[in-house]
């Protein structure tokens, strides 16, 4: 595989070069040290090391809130305005393999299922993903249980591996190659390649699979006691879904202003009590048992039936974020073993 190396000391000037032609998004450290993916400024430091960040690049494809259209006037006379498509190409740095794979799962829903969602699609078309291999799993991680790995290349244009004072960069697509067309990159040596490979293997070894995802798809049962067991403690918050890089459910709402308003979509979750509640009050999923069952079944059975692959890439954020320690690895282990 073709690869180059870049000294860590040259990263800033590389990013500066990218900023001349692209909008660059990368992991930055916000208040309380929370790392998230934000548009970079010329001199902004980018975090290209450490554990998988708690936020994912998902929000650059499905923003937490996104205007669908604006309207001006009143019901007596109204005009509509659709938001413009992005014109600049975007590059996202520091993308973890789980998150890149997750975007391919979102593609299934937004691009493959029936109609194309152009709002999502335009962002996908104009964005390149620069990956960063994980050296250590974060405590909730389980990518290897769902067919992934800390250095998987699926969905990425480049893959950075941290070799101490420099990065090994695997070139995974033509779009990726264009990003490194410039000075500062030397060809990767065999030693570099071996070091990267060894690091990847070591990271994989740290994470033996917690469950067999294929077996789970067969074993998901409607009436299993496992749902009630976890539903008892589930608080029906949205932490798991909102952090999940494959969760995509949204609500559509209007905000009115004096002379018009906007229609927007915003993140929603099947875990909220009123997600499926109808205007007159009927709710097909009345208790948390139905909702916990829906989440797990949707990700590990229904999506497998529809697209042949799970709606989960094992990033572990839900595991870490859940205030009541509903650990999806444990849930699926129970489903597989039909325990509880």
């Amino acid at each position, binding site marked *: 595989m073709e690869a180059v190396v870049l000294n860590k000391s040259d990263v800033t000037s590389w990013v500066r070069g990218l900023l001349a032609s692209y909008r660059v998004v990368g992991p930055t450290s916000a208040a*309380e040290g929370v790392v998230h993916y934000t548009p970079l400024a010329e001199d902004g430091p980018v975090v290209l090391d450490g554990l998988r960040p708690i936020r994912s690049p998902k929000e650059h494809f499905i923003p937490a809130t996104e205007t669908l259209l604006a309207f001006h006037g009143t019901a007596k006379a109204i005009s509509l305005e659709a938001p413009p498509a992005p014109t600049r190409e975007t590059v996202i740095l520091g993308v973890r393999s789980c998150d890149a794979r997750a975007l391919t799962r979102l593609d299934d829903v937004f691009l493959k299922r029936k109609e194309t969602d152009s709002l999502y699609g335009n962002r996908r078309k104009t964005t390149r993903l620069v990956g960063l291999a994980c050296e*250590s799993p974060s405590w909730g991680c389980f990518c290897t249980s769902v067919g992934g790995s800390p250095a998987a290349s699926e969905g990425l244009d480049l893959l950075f591996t941290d070799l101490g004072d420099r990065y090994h960069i695997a070139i995974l697509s033509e779009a990726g190659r264009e990003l490194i067309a410039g000075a500062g990159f030397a060809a990767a040596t065999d030693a570099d390649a071996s070091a990267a490979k060894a690091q990847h293997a070591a990271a994989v070894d740290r994470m033996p699979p917690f469950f067999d995802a294929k077996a789970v798809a067969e074993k998901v049962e409607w009436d299993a006691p496992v749902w009630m067991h976890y539903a008892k403690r589930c608080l029906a918050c949205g932490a798991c879904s909102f952090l999940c890089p494959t969760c995509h459910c949204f609500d559509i709402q209007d905000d009115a202003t004096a002379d018009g308003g906007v229609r927007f979509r915003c993140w929603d979750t099947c875990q909220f009590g009123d997600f499926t509640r109808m205007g007159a009050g009927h709710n097909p999923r009345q208790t948390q048992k139905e909702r916990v069952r829906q989440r797990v079944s949707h990700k590990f059975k229904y999506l497998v039936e529809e697209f042949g692959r799970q709606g989960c890439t094992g990033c572990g954020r839900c595991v870490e974020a859940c205030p009541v320690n509903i650990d999806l690895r444990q849930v699926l282990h129970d489903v597989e073993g039909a325990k509880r």
Partner: protein
Amino acid sequence: MSNLEVTIRETAARLLREGQVAVVLGYEAGSVPFRTAPAFIERAEDAGRLVWNRFCTNNLAVYLPKLKGAGRIALLAKGCDARSAVTLIQEHQILRDQVVILGIPCDGMVDADRLATSGESLFGVAIAPGADGSLTVASGDGQRTLSAADILQERCRLCEHNTPAIADGLLGEPAPRMPGAAEPFAAVAELERLSPAERQAFWHAQLDRCLRCYACREACPACYCRSCFADKAAPRWLSKANAADENWMFHAVRAFHLAGRCVGCGECERACPMDIPISKLNRMLDREVRERFGYVAGLDPAAVPPLGTFRPDDRDPGKHEG
């Protein structure tokens, strides 16, 4: 701690065996050593699942309104949890004789985020508690021994009621006072020194990353409204749009709804996946309530929280001194 664990298990088993309660709410081992999970023990033979350690941080009183009608409930309650139960009793969300409050003297819960140094992973760690209150954290990269007292959650360090004030029995000796109990508002001192404009900037920056996941609300035992103001379509109090000002509205209004009712358990902040220091808002209002009304939440089941009632002698800063 382990004696307390034995007592907890025996008490739970006895209450269930004797038919005194239908369910015991406690903690069981989590999926990793630095987490516990809420446990719903319904059979005496399952009481062995119950644990007591430095990670029993959840406020289990949050489940009381959800279990209404399930029969009598035994609640394993730390000082904060017991005060939450009292708040729920005051507000008729559960009848006093429907809950058996098993008071647990508590010397603080550990902040699990501080078990690892920055950038270090807790994947696969083992944690061994020492008799001296130490925790030895062992991972593939080596091991480290920490003093639990050094990495307590801030809300524990400042806790004024770590031995439950109201309980149907205390499962152990009263715990010594927490080191910061004399200065409960230390966590907000810095914030209180800032000007209103600076405070606004602080909260704007913090709430910019709020996801509106409502983990804070759902983890809070005092937020039990079946229809929260934030979710109402008619009237529409709040937009669902995720923007710092809408986020601020949600948190500010929620903080006001909790004024005089919040017991400072800190679960909101612990539950927040974005590490937003939400409980500072509640603590600042807590100080206001104490100063204006001389009231502390969750200590007297017969009391009515100040914002739930009006007394002619309520202090009005417009009329009286500021």
